[in-house]
């Protein structure tokens, strides 16, 4: 909050070539609600930042400020070295945005959509058309390019939307829940597309509620809740913060659970926990842990169906940080901006 109060003038613009996005003390109110409550953020060039948080945490508000759609109340934000407030017009030439909903005109064909966006970026018609064809091919939409987008599947619409965000070869790409509402196959294909863009050097800020998506795509992850950053790090760092590994034993017979819990009790300082036929125990040293557990259980004559070591998932991280699980995405866009 201290950064926010003097942010208007004093924060120097970190224009170093290595930083694509720098945010300091960003605050945005909607009426009484502090949608952003002093957010700090750095995204190095050429990396993917996963912005994680429950509904209403401020993810979309942050993206809207960084893409010049909203003016922050205080704090500073630089994207591609440009101030989102002072240099908004110049900045719009250098960013691409794909929002929560495929922002395409359904009554235009795929090619007409991309050509229109290209021309609005200032390309002459022929060049805009050429770029549109290029992108349609790249996103495997070339065959559908002459059809109205209303005939497209959900996955195709998202790909067209992403293509529209890439028309001007932006330096920084903002993807707000890019795979929300897609079937698993379309999600994976979109992930591959995003990975391809990143391998070509794009900087991406990606918001998501799907933890596996952040795990797969993001170089680093920022978790926000109630408009504040509550954790930042790589996926591994965040998982380590929650704790070490767990040994998870599936018993042949759930009736043996209590016996199994006492048999495994000596393996760790923390007590094992059990639910149904599964008993979990935290382990500090993974080497020999499985053999040790099997030995202890066999001594008691307990049958084991399955046994494995489990790293905490991002779900565990999310749960321990925010006190609640990552929610299913809602289909109400207004929820992010009360």
């Amino acid at each position, binding site marked *: 909050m201290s950064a926010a109060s003097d942010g208007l003038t004093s924060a120097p613009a970190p224009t170093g070539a290595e930083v694509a996005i720098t945010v300091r003390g960003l605050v945005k109110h*909607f009426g009484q609600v502090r949608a952003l409550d002093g957010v700090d953020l750095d995204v190095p060039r050429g990396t993917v930042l996963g912005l994680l948080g429950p509904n209403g945490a401020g993810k979309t508000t942050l993206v*809207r400020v960084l*893409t*010049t*759609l*909203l003016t922050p109340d205080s704090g500073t934000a630089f994207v591609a070295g440009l101030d989102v407030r002072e240099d908004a*017009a*110049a900045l*719009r*030439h250098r*960013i691409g*945005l794909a*929002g*929560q*909903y*495929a*922002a*395409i*005109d*359904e*009554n*235009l064909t795929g090619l*007409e959509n991309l050509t*229109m*966006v290209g*021309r*609005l*970026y*200032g390309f002459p018609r022929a060049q805009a058309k050429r770029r549109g064809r290029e992108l349609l091919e790249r996103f495997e939409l070339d065959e559908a390019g002459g059809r*109205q987008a209303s005939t497209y599947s959900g996955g195709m619409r998202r790909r067209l939307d992403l293509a*529209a965000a890439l028309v001007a070869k932006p330096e920084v790409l903002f993807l707000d829940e890019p795979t929300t509402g897609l079937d698993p196959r379309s999600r994976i294909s979109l992930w591959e597309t995003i990975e391809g863009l990143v391998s070509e050097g794009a900087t991406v800020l990606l918001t998501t509620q799907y933890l596996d998506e952040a795990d797969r795509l993001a170089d680093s992850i920022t978790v926000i809740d109630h408009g504040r950053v509550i954790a930042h790090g790589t996926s591994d760092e965040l998982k380590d913060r929650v704790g070490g590994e767990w040994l998870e034993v599936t018993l042949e017979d759930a009736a043996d659970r209590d016996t199994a819990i006492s048999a495994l009790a000596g393996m760790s300082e923390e007590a094992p926990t059990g639910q149904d036929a599964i008993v979990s125990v935290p382990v500090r040293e993974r080497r020999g842990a499985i053999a040790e557990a099997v030995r202890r259980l066999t001594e008691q004559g307990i049958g084991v169906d399955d046994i494995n070591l489990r790293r905490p998932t991002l779900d565990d991280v999310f749960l321990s940080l925010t006190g609640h699980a990552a929610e299913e995405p809602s289909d109400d*866009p207004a929820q992010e*901006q009360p």
Partner: protein
Amino acid sequence: MRRLVTDTLIIAERNLIRLPRKPELLIAFTVQPIMFVLLFRYVFGGAINTGGIPYVDFLIPGIIVQNIAFGGFVTALGLNEDVHKGLIDRFRSLPMARPAVLAGRTLSDVVTNFLSICVLVITGLIIGFSFHAPALHVVAGFALLLLFGYAFSWVFALVGLLASTPESANSVGFLAVFPLTFISSAFVPVSSMPAALRAFANINPFTIIVDAMRSLWIGTPAHNYVWGAVVWALVILVVFSPLAVARYRRAAGT
């Protein structure tokens, strides 16, 4: 400035490309108004005394003005749809001239308004309407209708940006346009109304515009109606276009 013109034309082109692909809109522009003309001409017309002027001549200028006002719904609904589909966000994230999305929308409305005026005039001519005025006045009538329609498009652009849903855009527009157009000289002589309604109808800008159209097309006394109508249209334009653009700049739908 060049950017504004180019971007406005790009957006207008987009709206016009869409038009034939939305059959329900084409029906709204054509079949529906024709139905209204026929209903008034043949169902109500016989019972309405217009003091010597054939009802069909009285009706056509009035119903065209009403139709132009209702045409604004297409603007409101279209913009509201763009807000909800995220298209307005996309446009606002592009380096385009800020007023272009609205200017392009209202410009394409001029084209659709012209089409629907033509449809109604032709329908009118088939069922017995005729111009009783010099050609220059007839053309001036078309121009006045287009100017008025253009001004009204900006009112509906603001409604479309402010409304939370297409349904609410629709009902706001409906609640305003229905009484404004019916409590005017569009369908019946104002003198036939009860005193309170008559007082309202006499100051209603729709009455002035309808009377201006009648003077231009069927040669009724002109008084100051034509200038009054032009002034009204300009006032509406000057008030509502900056409001709509300001709303668009700020953030549509938030």
